[in-house]
């Protein structure tokens, strides 16, 4: 089996876990697709170093030959499978675990400018719990 086929199977497996096994359905959620471009950016950077400096080398016969920042395109599939499996299990555990207070969420809105993330329009009307003053 080539790396190309293995990577496609890896993506299929991760999708099966997300959609059918754990049913976290992350690939249907905006928060996942908002996260993924950030992760891919860092993946291209780190993977580019690993392959560009030839820390890792690939058998030309195992890959299709298309490369992106030195790395074979198969690495994108490999990374997608790794990230989707990880986040699916993380969310699934959060669903099953003890009820988590939303204490980890900041009470104030984090300005989009500070994170470099695109701002998605005006904030939704926030329900009472989070805007309640004097807690």
């Amino acid at each position, binding site marked *: 089996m080539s790396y190309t086929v293995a990577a496609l199977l890896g993506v299929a497996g991760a999708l099966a876990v997300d959609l059918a096994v754990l049913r976290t359905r992350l690939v249907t959620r905006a928060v*996942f697709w908002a996260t993924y471009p950030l992760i891919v950016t860092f993946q291209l950077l780190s993977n580019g170093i690993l392959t560009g400096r030839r820390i*890792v080398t690939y058998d030309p016969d195992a890959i299709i030959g298309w490369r992106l920042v030195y790395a074979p395109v198969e690495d994108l599939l490999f990374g997608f499978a*790794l990230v989707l499996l*990880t986040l699916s*299990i993380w969310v699934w555990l959060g669903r099953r675990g003890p009820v988590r207070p939303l204490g980890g969420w*900041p009470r104030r809105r984090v300005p989009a400018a500070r994170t470099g993330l695109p701002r998605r329009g005006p904030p939704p009307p926030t329900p009472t719990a989070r805007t309640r003053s004097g807690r």
Partner: protein
Amino acid sequence: MRHLAYLFVLGGCLVAALWLEPVLKVGVLRRWRRLLLTLLPVVVVFVLWDLAAIAAGHWTFDPAQTTGILLPGGLPLDEVLFFVVVPVCAVLGFEAVRVVLRRPAGDE
């Protein structure tokens, strides 16, 4: 120093992501049990994939740019750490995006 090249890349990933814990208060490291439980199956699955890929000759590692610590099957320790570091960074990024966007992820 050259044999630390792979570890430097992993360190760079951690530096790029770990600040999210204190600054955005994502609470990923604070929920370390959940994080460990997430890592366990991921590391197992991807180490098995890696071992199969090494056996099939899909990829090789430069001994001069890795720690030289090899696990059974010729798997460098560096590569195992990759399967720890990348998922941790991914969860940190995911929770950070969630904090910023305030969109449901399915475990609320």
